[in-house]
């Protein structure tokens, strides 16, 4: 019995860790939130042993939470889709993809970093003295 409960706890911790590690973007976080609500709903229905009126109230709250998260995700998908799916790497990757160069010579950020810089090949001498200089 003790071994079984320990195995169960280890399995729970492992599942929990995997669920948290799966969150890489805001959309992933909303999925996790829905899973939590789903677990809450299941718990109120079967595990918690609540009396009938409390059960119905808790299920109602769970359904309301589900609809709130669902509605929020739908709104974000329509209004700010990029914010929903951008992960921690996406911002860096997007910046690297941004085009640099000029109108006749487009290059990516990665290509730009690979170019060898040098000082100007053009003369910059000949600057006239200002009013306070060379008097």
């Amino acid at each position, binding site marked *: 019995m003790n071994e079984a409960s320990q195995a169960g706890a280890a399995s729970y911790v492992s599942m929990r860790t995997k669920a948290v590690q799966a969150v890489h973007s805001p959309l992933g976080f909303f999925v996790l939130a829905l899973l939590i609500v789903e677990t809450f709903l299941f718990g109120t229905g079967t595990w918690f042993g609540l009396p009938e009126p409390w059960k119905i109230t808790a299920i109602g709250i769970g359904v309301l939470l589900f609809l709130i998260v669902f509605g929020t995700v739908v709104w974000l998908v329509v209004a700010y889709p*990029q914010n929903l799916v951008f992960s921690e790497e996406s911002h860096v990757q997007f910046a690297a993809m941004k085009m640099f160069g*000029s109108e006749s010579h487009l290059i990516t950020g990665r290509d730009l970093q690979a170019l060898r810089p040098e000082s100007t090949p*053009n003369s910059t001498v000949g600057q006239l003295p200002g009013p306070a200089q060379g008097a």
Partner: protein
Amino acid sequence: MPLPTPYAYIVCYDLKQPAGQYKPLFDELQRSHLWWHYLTSTWIVLRYEALAELAPKLRPLIFQGDFMLIQPAKGPAEGWLPKDAWDWLQKNVPREW
């Protein structure tokens, strides 16, 4: 009223939002007659608009908390850039001396 010949401007900015939010700004800058973008937060653009017309075009494309500077661009230039960047500047940016 468009200028008879394109004028060189330097556009510098300090943007706070994720890069993806600024596609309209980058698209507008790339619509310039000629453009140069070898530094992350700096463009040099040749436009037919006067400065007073260009600024109202670009200002709505940034967000609250962002900074932007637009002013005439003049050479010569010194620094540390790839050769292609220097060639473009030499060819397209008028020199002060």
